[in-house]
């Protein structure tokens, strides 16, 4: 890429850099405003002259958020759902991706196409039958009703994406392992698994986000037992269309966004290389 960059003359690069920074500022502005509003005292939020800074930061909004209802509990619920989904779908997808890349068997291509098609299924359209399914199994109002569908819906994409990572492990390695007397199981967990792990991390971003952000299932399946609610539902407690408590909404949003941000920053580099490989392979 040095060459491409070299072809662009200096002033152009300066203009490009300035616009990159400006765009970054615009893109980051909503997040900045969210955090800022969360720390603003009540009087400044409900002001007709909003200012992009605050001289008297206060924790009132956060206090209100954690004081009202069982916000901490919702936070833990969300965390339990997201982590269970991430671990379960990663393990299941790893096994399935190994099967479709390391073996040739009948219906292999058919299965792959099915996984691809499954990614397109509008999850939201299935809320209705899933609602009755959960009801029949007595799973309504439980965290299980959120965990199970999310595992299912994150699997096709995870398998599709992991395929590339499994394929990248040279076959000679597998043969060498067998020659050294390793069993299939041993090869799978002690050799293949650690090598594919970076790919699993990249994949887990997507399952984490879909589970953590889930709004529809939480809204549809957790109907009466609010102790099983998750964060997105708790957030809407503060947001009443007629008279929203903006300070509370922004504080709750901040609390909800931070874990995802941390997760993203941690896996950022693997994500970029993971996407570069997986989308094509």
């Amino acid at each position: 890429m040095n060459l491409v960059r070299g072809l662009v003359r200096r002033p152009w690069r300066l203009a490009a850099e300035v616009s990159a920074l400006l765009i970054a500022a615009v893109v980051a502005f909503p997040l900045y405003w969210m955090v800022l509003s969360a720390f603003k005292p009540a009087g400044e939020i409900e002001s007709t002259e909003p200012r992009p800074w605050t001289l008297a930061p206060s924790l009132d909004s956060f206090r209100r958020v954690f004081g009202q209802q069982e916000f901490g509990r919702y936070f833990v619920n969300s965390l339990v759902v997201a982590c269970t989904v991430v671990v379960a779908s990663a393990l299941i997808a790893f096994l399935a991706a190994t099967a479709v890349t390391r073996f040739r068997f009948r219906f292999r291509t058919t299965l792959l196409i099915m996984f691809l098609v499954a990614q397109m299924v509008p999850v939201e359209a299935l809320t209705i039958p899933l609602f009755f399914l959960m009801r029949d199994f007595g799973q309504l109002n439980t965290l299980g009703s959120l965990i199970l569908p999310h595992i299912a819906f994150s699997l096709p994409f995870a398998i599709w994406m992991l395929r590339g990572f499994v394929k990248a492990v040279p076959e000679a390695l597998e043969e060498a392992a067998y020659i050294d007397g390793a069993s299939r199981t041993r090869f799978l967990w002690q050799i293949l698994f650690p090598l594919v792990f970076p790919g699993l991390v990249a994949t887990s971003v997507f399952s984490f986000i879909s589970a953590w952000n889930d709004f529809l299932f939480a809204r549809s399946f957790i109907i009466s037992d609010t102790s099983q609610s998750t964060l997105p539902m708790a957030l809407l407690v503060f947001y009443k269309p007629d008279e929203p408590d903006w300070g509370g909404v922004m504080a709750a949003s901040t609390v909800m966004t931070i874990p995802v941000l941390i997760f993203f920053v941690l896996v950022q580099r693997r994500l970029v290389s993971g996407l570069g490989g997986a989308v094509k392979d």
Partner: protein
Amino acid sequence: MTPVTPKSPGVVERRRVRVVGGLPRPRPSAGSGARRPGNRTPWLYLAPALVVLGGLLVYPIYQLGLMSFFQYTQAQVSGGEPTTFEGFGNYAELFSDSQFWQVLLATVLFAAACVVSTLAAGCALAVLLTRVRAVPRLVLMLAALGAWATPAVTGSTVWLFLFDPDFGPVNRIFGLGDYSWTYGRLSAFFLVLLEVVWCSFPFVMVTVYAGIRAVPSEVLEAAALDGASQWRIWRSVLTPMLRPILMVVTIQSVIWDFKVFTQIYVITNGGGIAGQNLVLNVYAYQQAFASSQYSLGSAIGVVMLLILLAVTLVYLRLLRRQGEEL
């Protein structure tokens, strides 16, 4: 354990360059299982995935289809009345309802606008990323990751607050007074579009950027040595090489934007005034869970499923035409 354990990043890196570069590559030999025909191992590995997908994806789809052929409302749910077979009755009712067509049209136009804006923004910024030095690149990348990471619910409430007629900064900056963005149909859709583009362009940007970076520099050098101009390199070398990646992000965007739910639901408060901002997804949800018309909701779900299936088939055909091996 084993004597050979290559560092995984290296493996990934090498593969990326080879694969994304679109250079002729040796067909991977058949998996090790080829030596042991009739092996049950792959099915053992696949079993957990198939069980989960069968129970929570395939079966619900079957149920969805089934429900759309029956009369299924609150009375049937509570067991007050028996379920009756309706045939295509629900579909007939749906197709004769002018609101359905209006919602369908709105969904298609809205999704198209979202896809075009997201792709334009994502690709333009990916190119921009290749033109700047490390610091501005990192800053833009981090800002984009922040937008990407923001949950749809919080993103929606924040954008709603930014555009709030009384307390939002946007109306102040542009001197719009107390103009209400959610009141008009188009302005409400526009607000949702902004939020959708904001949270989905980073995926396009990061993916396309990774794709551009993975193009081997020898190829570009060769083109430059042959006297190709900047523009020519873009048009004749990079674009064809990036086509597979562009196709993937386009299809992904179509699928995501066609299914937008949370943003519409939160920003327009469940579909806007008198349902003016409904899209198919929200419409199906409202029919089912707000009006207890479960069978009508299912029929809308089936329509969505069929449309997305058509998109997928087009995608598969394109993949095949490119000679992709699955």
